[in-house]
């Protein structure tokens, strides 16, 4: 959602985010909402400055968000407080699900289709029921026991306030108060928003936590409406842009899937068949794929050679960061290019990361400062004379020293102008990539090996318009953005929108969703700087088509009139015969609300004038996910891989689909192990991010050192005072830090016992002016199956007063076998032999 639109919310539920401290300036919209009378709720293990500004703070055991959200969903259905008209018209609540589908309630924590041998689900029963013509069977009365709403009700039937109290440590009355507040602030007249960050995602069930929030918001009718929605607070300046114009192994730009040898993707035709949906917006996928190939390979991409589709490499599994790091440790990766990223400090299992870097032939690091990754070979305990990795450090320009676009958390592209030249030999990342590409083209010139054709045919013309920049060799970021926008091949004129893209090779486009940002040679709408304080359509440019709120057709009732005057946003103007409003309508501009769906139609023709969710084949919001996720069509509570208690809801303890590495260099704390009785969570502090802040003097002065936050009761029990040294240990490793004893972490009563939680900031490392031990030393690798995000928010640990043990090098040399030494030169941490 558009971040400033939070000011229009009547209630904001913040969970999995310390909004005020991690996104401080964005939090001003929460405060504006509060000034207008909104109720602010903060659900978090810690009482933070976000909680201090909230009307209700709910302390929760880390890793139990699905139980809390499931409890809200159950309460809203049981009390009949969902927005019935919205739910019936705009969601799949009335769709029936196939008869052979079985829920986790039937199978004690599993859905139907689980194959224990393969360790994965056959998702064929997770589908809507269809009639003989292939149409979805519906029950608009929402009474059929197999309709999505009733299945959902049954799925969460045991997520009662009492169960929430038992599992989350949240008093039942507090859950009921939150549920009632949300219900009272949703409906025709009012809207509620949900805001989250990595506190929800960095879990082995991360995707399902966010899914639970989406279900809650669909039930309350808060999607596509002003002051409603799910606000993903992304962590860094261009995280959104790096997802859109993807540098992620499984995506091509514009959310097109990477071709995979595990699927039927061997030819362009079969790939297009698999990525094209007959109904909904993805019917247009062929134009986007072919235009991308034209942008990459130019004149070489022709209809007769499938537009060079075979030039694209194919994936053969999960090549994301964690599996790649493990493969590197096992000697399967030889070269690594790391740009503005510091896995040796901010990643997980820092020992394994450093051991992996040692096995490389070469490492290229582009950064503005020395960091733990480029200097891994001289870290404490390492012997450089035994490390064969060749390391190149290339000095980077900072944001002020280059121009270009970053996409912020609401999908808004913002161009930054260049203020000054970088110092010394420092260059922009774009400079390095451009010249590396040119050198590789030169090195491969003349090759007749087919494997080298993609490099030779790659279009690579980005000369800068400005003579000063051209003399510096700086490529033109604007020309790159124009290529991402797309153009007509014949006359090289820009396309104004992705609707102009074709699948016949007549257009080229590097990222279809950004089409429209540079609609002609003179215009760069990312550089628009003409703002108002509402939707600010003249400030920057939001993909797609400058829409600030997605699916905003849902802000009007099925008949096209606003749900209420108070929440008027986008509506049907019968006299003009088009959708109008405060935002760019996210709907065919002149399709009337009464337009019937064409059952034989392709694309959006298959949707009616009251189907707002245009990207989805059915045109309606999905409470039930038919087959698209690997771990289930509904969110289900599983304990984190490491947790102090069992799963109160099912015999299945943790997610049957989570990804783990059970090996000597990646031990986990066994569940319920009394040696690791405390819940450990990690977080960011306002003044620190990582290498980008640790060297900045003003910030180092504000937050000079890492620490460990401990609640008063636990500190008393352990005899720890603020400022004392403490040691935090897991089976993987141990770190020391100064204790920060606060009343902000309260002990919770969970399953009849007291659970203490402790927290450490993840921002520190041994380099910089602000220093601290690396939290990654404690955290083993484990991840979510859908998006391969790691688990770093819920772990278990031991805590003891005093500094970490240090064993002198000669004792290690004499008494500790080499295989028992960590890459930091110390003996392996205590407890690991039991793991």
């Amino acid at each position, binding site marked *: 959602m558009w*971040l400033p639109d939070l000011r229009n919310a009547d209630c904001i539920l913040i969970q999995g985010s310390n909004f005020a401290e*991690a*996104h401080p300036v964005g939090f*001003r919209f929460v405060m504006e909402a509060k000034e207008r009378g909104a109720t602010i709720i903060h659900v978090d293990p810690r009482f933070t400055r976000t909680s201090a500004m909230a009307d209700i703070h709910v302390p929760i055991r880390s890793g139990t968000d699905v139980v809390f959200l499931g409890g809200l969903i159950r309460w809203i259905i049981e009390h009949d407080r969902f927005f019935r008209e919205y739910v019936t018209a705009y969601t799949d609540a009335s769709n029936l699900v196939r008869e052979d589908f079985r829920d986790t309630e039937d199978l004690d924590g599993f859905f139907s289709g689980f194959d224990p041998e393969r360790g994965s689900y056959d998702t064929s029963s997770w589908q809507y029921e269809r009639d003989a013509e292939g149409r979805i069977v519906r029950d608009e009365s929402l009474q059929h026991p197999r309709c999505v709403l009733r299945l959902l009700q049954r799925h969460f039937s045991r997520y009662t306030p009492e169960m929430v109290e038992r599992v989350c440590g949240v008093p039942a009355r507090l859950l009921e108060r939150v549920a009632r507040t949300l219900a009272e602030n949703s409906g025709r007249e009012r809207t509620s928003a949900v805001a989250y960050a990595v506190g929800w995602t*960095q879990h082995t069930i991360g995707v399902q936590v966010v899914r639970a929030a989406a279900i809650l918001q669909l039930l309350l009718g808060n999607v596509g409406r002003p002051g409603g929605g799910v606000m993903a607070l992304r962590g860094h*300046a261009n995280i*959104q842009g*790096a997802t*859109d114009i*993807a*540098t992620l192994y499984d995506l091509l730009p514009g959310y097109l899937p990477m071709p995979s*040898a595990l699927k039927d993707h061997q030819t362009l035709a079969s790939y297009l068949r698999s990525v094209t949906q007959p109904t909904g917006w993805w019917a247009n996928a062929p134009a986007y794929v072919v235009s991308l190939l034209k942008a*990459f390979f130019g004149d070489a991409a022709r209809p007769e050679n499938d537009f060079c589709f*075979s*030039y694209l490499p*194919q994936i053969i599994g999960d090549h*994301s*960061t964690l599996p*790649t790091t493990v*493969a590197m440790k096992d000697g*399967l*990766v*030889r*070269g690594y*290019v790391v*740009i503005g*990223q510091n896995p040796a400090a901010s990643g997980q299992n820092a020992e394994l990361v450093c051991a992996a870097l040692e096995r490389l032939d070469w490492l290229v690091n582009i950064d*503005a*400062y020395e960091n733990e990754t480029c200097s891994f070979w001289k870290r404490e305990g390492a012997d450089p004379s035994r*490390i*064969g*990795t060749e*390391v*190149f*450090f*290339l000095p980077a320009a*900072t*944001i002020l020293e280059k121009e270009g676009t*970053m996409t912020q958390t609401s999908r808004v592209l913002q161009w930054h102008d260049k203020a*000054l*030249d970088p110092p010394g030999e*420092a260059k922009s990342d*774009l400079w390095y*990539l451009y*010249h*590396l590409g040119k050198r590789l083209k030169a090195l491969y010139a003349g090759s007749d090996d087919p*494997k080298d054709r*993609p490099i030779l045919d*790659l279009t690579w013309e980005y000369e800068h318009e400005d003579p000063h920049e051209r003399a510096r060799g700086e490529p033109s970021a604007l020309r*790159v*953005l124009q290529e*991402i926008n797309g153009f007509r091949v014949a006359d090289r004129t820009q396309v104004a929108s992705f609707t102009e893209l074709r699948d016949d090779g007549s257009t080229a486009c*590097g990222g279809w969703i950004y089409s429209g940002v540079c609609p002609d040679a003179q215009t760069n709408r990312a550089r628009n700087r003409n*703002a108002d304080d509402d939707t600010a359509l003249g400030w*920057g440019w939001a993909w797609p088509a400058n829409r600030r709120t997605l699916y905003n057709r849902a802000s009007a009732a099925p008949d096209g009139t606003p749900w209420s005057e108070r929440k008027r946003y986008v509506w049907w103007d019968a006299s003009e015969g088009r959708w109008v409003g405060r935002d760019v309508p996210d709907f065919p501009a002149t399709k009337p609300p009464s337009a019937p769906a064409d059952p034989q139609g392709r694309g959006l023709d298959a949707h009616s004038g009251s189907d707002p969710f245009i990207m989805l084949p059915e045109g309606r919001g999905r409470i039930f996910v038919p087959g698209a996720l690997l771990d289930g069509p509904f969110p289900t509570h599983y304990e984190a891989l490491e947790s102090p208690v069992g799963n109160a809801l099912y015999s299945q303890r943790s997610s049957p689909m989570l990804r783990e590495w059970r090996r000597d260099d990646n031990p986990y704390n066994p569940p319920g192990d009394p040696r690791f009785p405390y819940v450990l969570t990690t977080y960011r502090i*306002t003044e620190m*991010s990582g290498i*980008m802040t640790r060297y900045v*003097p003003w910030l180092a002065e504000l937050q000079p050192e890492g620490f460990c936050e401990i609640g008063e009761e636990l500190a008393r029990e352990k005899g720890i005072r603020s400022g004392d040294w403490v040691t935090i240990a897991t089976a993987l490793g141990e770190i020391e830090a100064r204790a920060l004893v606060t009343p902000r972490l309260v002990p919770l009563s969970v399953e009849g016992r007291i659970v203490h939680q402790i927290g450490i900031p993840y921002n520190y490392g041994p380099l910089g002016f602000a220093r601290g031990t690396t939290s990654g030393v404690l955290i083993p690798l484990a991840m979510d199956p859908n*998006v391969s995000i790691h688990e770093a928010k819920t772990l278990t640990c031991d805590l003891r007063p005093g500094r970490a043990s240090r064993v002198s090098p000669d004792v290690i040399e004499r008494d500790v076998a080499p295989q028992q030494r960590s890459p930091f030169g110390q003996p392996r941490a205590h407890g690991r032999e039991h793991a």
Partner: protein
Amino acid sequence: MARTTIDLTSAASLPHLLTRRAGLLPNLPSARTERLHARTDGARAVAGVCPYCAVGCGTLAYVSDDGRLLDVEGNPESPINRGKLCPKGAAIFGLTVNDARWTTVRYRAPYGTRWEERPLAWAMERIAQRIRETRDATFVREWNGKRVNHTLGIASLGGATFGVEENYLLGKLMHALGVVSIENQARI
């Protein structure tokens, strides 16, 4: 230093309260104070975006005529921050103007014990050669009877302040090389 004050009358009188306590009557500035001005006055203001979190606050970088960075402030025109910045954003100056920055190419030879300085052109050529060498040695055309045209021998990891255009060129170049382990902080 000449300082003009208007001492209206004795303590405890109403004018005294207004002048000294409430500050409602003018305390006239000195000539020196009159001459003071913000060091950013007249400097070129360049509009940008904060590189830290994803809120996307607008910044103004003030640059002197001789190209020195003077200050970085919030952009009052941005509808996102209306001139405000958090401690990190307010410290962008120190991220850029900083003696601890590394501004030259550094090279660490295999089994080397220290960093060495090397020319940029040398490093660029050497890196290109190493990429070619590793790619050629690890390139796989077929896997399980299927065309894959990839290399698992090279991987990349980009950070989250890496811009849109930079992401695009990295992806384009890496895909052309056959690299598939292309990753970003965005996963994380």
